[in-house]
């Protein structure tokens, strides 16, 4: 198998898997009160999974829009780091400024991981764009199907209110591999549970973000 083909196959395989993820976002988002259009707009224009899930989870629980926005933006902040990591090869990946501005929309976990996994500039470019475009297509198709299916059934009856936490658990697992990750998760969870009863809905999620400060004292 040629190198190019190997990169394209792994990008598309990942994109397909992420499409399944999008199905559950579509279902969960309409169950939380968004319309099919709003759900699709989130996937088209926000296009960063964890933030979309987080925003609709807070909205579904009756939180304010500011709280929903705040948590989602905090989760999107890691894309800034991905952009930085990719920027050394930004010229070879995306070319001139207008192309780079377009490419920015596709700077997410998966495109960064696959692009930086390649060593040659040519393969990086292929990995970034096939993952970016492939994943964008599957993510939005999955969202649409999920949203249509979700608005046709009673989510409570099918236990679909558990779709959010179930997806969050899957997203959380890789972060528990490091000691710092486990500490941040435990502290964040504890801060949230303690404050739920007296802070406005959604705000405990913002408070949980302060748990990242466990990263300050650890120097390695």
């Amino acid at each position, binding site marked *: 198998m040629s190198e190019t083909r190997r990169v394209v196959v792994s990008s598309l395989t990942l994109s397909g898997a992420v499409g399944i993820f999008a199905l559950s976002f579509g279902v969960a988002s309409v169950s939380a009160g968004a319309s099919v259009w709003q759900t699709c707009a989130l996937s088209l224009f926000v296009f960063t999974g964890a933030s979309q899930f987080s925003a609709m989870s807070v909205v579904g629980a009756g939180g304010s829009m500011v709280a929903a926005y705040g948590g989602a933006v905090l989760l999107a902040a890691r894309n800034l780091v991905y952009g930085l990591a990719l920027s050394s090869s930004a010229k070879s990946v995306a070319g001139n400024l207008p192309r780079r501005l377009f490419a920015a929309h596709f700077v997410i976990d998966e495109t960064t991981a696959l692009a930086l996994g390649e060593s040659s500039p040519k393969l990086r470019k292929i990995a970034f764009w096939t993952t970016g475009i492939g994943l964008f297509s599957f993510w939005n198709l999955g969202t649409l199907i999920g949203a249509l299916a979700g608005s046709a059934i009673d989510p409570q009856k099918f236990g679909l209110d558990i779709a959010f936490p*179930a997806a969050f658990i899957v997203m959380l697992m890789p972060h528990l591999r490091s000691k710092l990750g486990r500490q941040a998760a435990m502290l964040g969870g504890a801060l949230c549970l303690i404050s739920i009863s007296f802070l406005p809905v959604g705000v405990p999620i913002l408070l949980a973000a302060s748990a990242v400060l466990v990263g300050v004292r650890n120097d390695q």
Partner: protein
Amino acid sequence: MINEAPANLWLMIIALAVSAYLLKMFGLVVLGSRQLPKVFDRCLGLIPAALLSALVLKDTFSVGQSLVFDARVAGFAVAVVAAWRRAPLIVVVVLAASATALLRAI
């Protein structure tokens, strides 16, 4: 959990879309290959761990501002075990939803 869509949900979606794009663009196009301080880098990397864990607990153990213990706990337990055993997401969601739905049906 079916609510009427809040009127300002569109506003939130637009604000979030703009912010998410600016964050992605800022790193890739504006900052260039400048290095962030190590501490900053590490703390940003820990955001998902802290927030996802908080979101899991909120969505499992609360309704609005009250802590509750209901059929969702069964789904939560099933999801933890399934995710721990590296089951694919769709399997985790279906198993968790089935456990919660089953408990509600009994």
